[in-house]
């Protein structure tokens, strides 16, 4: 019997829609390879990310919740939001919408009521109950590990199939950054000090990973726009540690980490008079290639540091 198709709403968010198009495209191709149906949320808006959250939490909730309600209009309650910042904001908004008024303190109650008002002002008619499930790419793929394993078996059993050369030459360190820690209230799907989700997923497609001590060190995130030197230092330490661990590349699942480590690697080299050449690939690019996608299909050419090792 054919299993029922998985259908989800997809929220790319602003970064994936522009500077991190490679992440976006590699996710979509991977979903297609896995047979997961997705539909982009129609007329989605920016979640407000750090600037909204750091200046007005009500603003942050209203911006994020609009996207959830748009997904609901399209008939979805499962939303994939790969960007961890968006995931964090959307996840938090989902929790507020689902919360029962009895359990809230005055502050939270006021926040919820204001949010409902704002959403009505945006023209939404609110239902009694909502149960949104918001995922980032990592916990989403973990949940559907079975599909990855099946697909891998299928690909490797094809006669004459050889693993892509590029993957054979990579010796990867998985870098998680601070992404797993939030949203604070979300159920943790991995050990936050020593996560292994990426190693598990890569292991499913026959890729071994180096032991890496800096898995969860922070890359400096959004401070790259305002305090560049600090970000360069934090990112340099991560690159250095990866090399010390015997890796020649990093695998990540956050576009901000990717940018700080890849795009800014030339700045790091100039600043510290170094000559790092550590490609920083998205998890979805690596998985995609292992499951038969070409380098072009996962947009490997968009990386600043080329994975030619």
């Amino acid at each position, binding site marked *: 019997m054919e299993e029922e198709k998985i259908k989800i709403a997809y929220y790319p968010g*602003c970064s994936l*829609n522009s500077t991190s198009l490679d992440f976006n495209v590699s996710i979509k191709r991977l979903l297609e390879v896995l047979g997961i149906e997705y539909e982009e949320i129609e007329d989605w808006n920016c979640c407000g990310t750090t600037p909204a959250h750091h200046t*007005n939490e009500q603003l942050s909730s209203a*911006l994020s919740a609009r996207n959830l309600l748009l997904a609901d209009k399209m008939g979805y309650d499962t939303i994939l939001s790969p960007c961890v910042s968006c995931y964090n904001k959307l996840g938090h908004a989902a929790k507020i919408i689902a919360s029962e008024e009895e359990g809230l303190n005055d502050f939270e109650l006021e926040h919820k009521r204001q949010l409902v008002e*704002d959403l009505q002002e945006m023209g939404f008619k609110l239902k009694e109950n909502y149960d949104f499930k918001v995922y980032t790419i990592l916990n989403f793929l973990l949940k559907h590990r079975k599909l990855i394993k099946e697909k891998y078996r299928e690909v490797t059993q094809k006669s004459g199939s050889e693993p892509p050369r590029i993957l054979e030459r990579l010796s990867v360190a998985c870098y998680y950054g601070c992404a797993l820690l939030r949203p*604070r209230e979300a159920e943790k799907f991995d050990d936050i000090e020593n996560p292994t989700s990426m190693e598990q997923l890569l292991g499913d497609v026959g890729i071994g990973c180096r032991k890496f001590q800096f898995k969860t060190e922070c890359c400096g995130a959004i401070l790259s726009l*305002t305090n560049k030197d600090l970000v360069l230092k934090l990112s340099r330490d991560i690159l250095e540690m990866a090399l010390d661990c015997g890796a020649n590349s990093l695998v990540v699942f956050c576009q901000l980490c990717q940018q700080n480590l890849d795009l800014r690697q*030339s*700045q790091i080299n100039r600043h510290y008079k170094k000559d790092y050449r550590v490609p920083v690939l998205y998890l979805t690019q690596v998985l995609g290639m292992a499951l038969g996608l070409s380098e072009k299909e996962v947009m490997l050419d968009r990386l600043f540091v080329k994975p030619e090792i």
Partner: protein
Amino acid sequence: MKKQEIDLNKIQEELEGYIEPNMNYCCQCGKCSAGCPVVEAYEYKPHQIISLIQAGQMEKIINSNTIWLCVECDICSTRCPEKISIASIMNHLRVATWQKNTKKDKNIAKFYKLFNFMVRFFGRSYEPGLIMGLNVGTGRFFNDADIAADILKKRKIKILPEFVKGRKEIGKVTKKYQ
């Protein structure tokens, strides 16, 4: 606007009342500060922020750079043995003083303002405008000029902004909060 207009007592009450009532269990172990990625740049470290709040020295906190440099990575909160949510404290300090605080980091303030404005206007963030505005606005024209060429070469940036159809409704609501 003068910083005196900020009601520090009220913020302190909010912090101790409902943002983080557990704050008083802080044993000053310093684990939060030990794991913080930006601690070197802070005028006050996370565990010092806690003791300053307890001592009622709110003025010192809001005059320092700490709350503006915090990237809200949440490492501090997850490692605290008393489960004190230091990151929530930081965010409340930011949100509560954002409008009137004259000592906030100028670059970050410009960035947030510009970003929020764009979202109100377009419904989405618009990176070329953001980068240009930030470089001009902070007087560091093309701070990232060295990588700008790389970005263009890889077509990593969209040239034209995208407009969300519902931006009018979004604008109505966001305007209230800016």
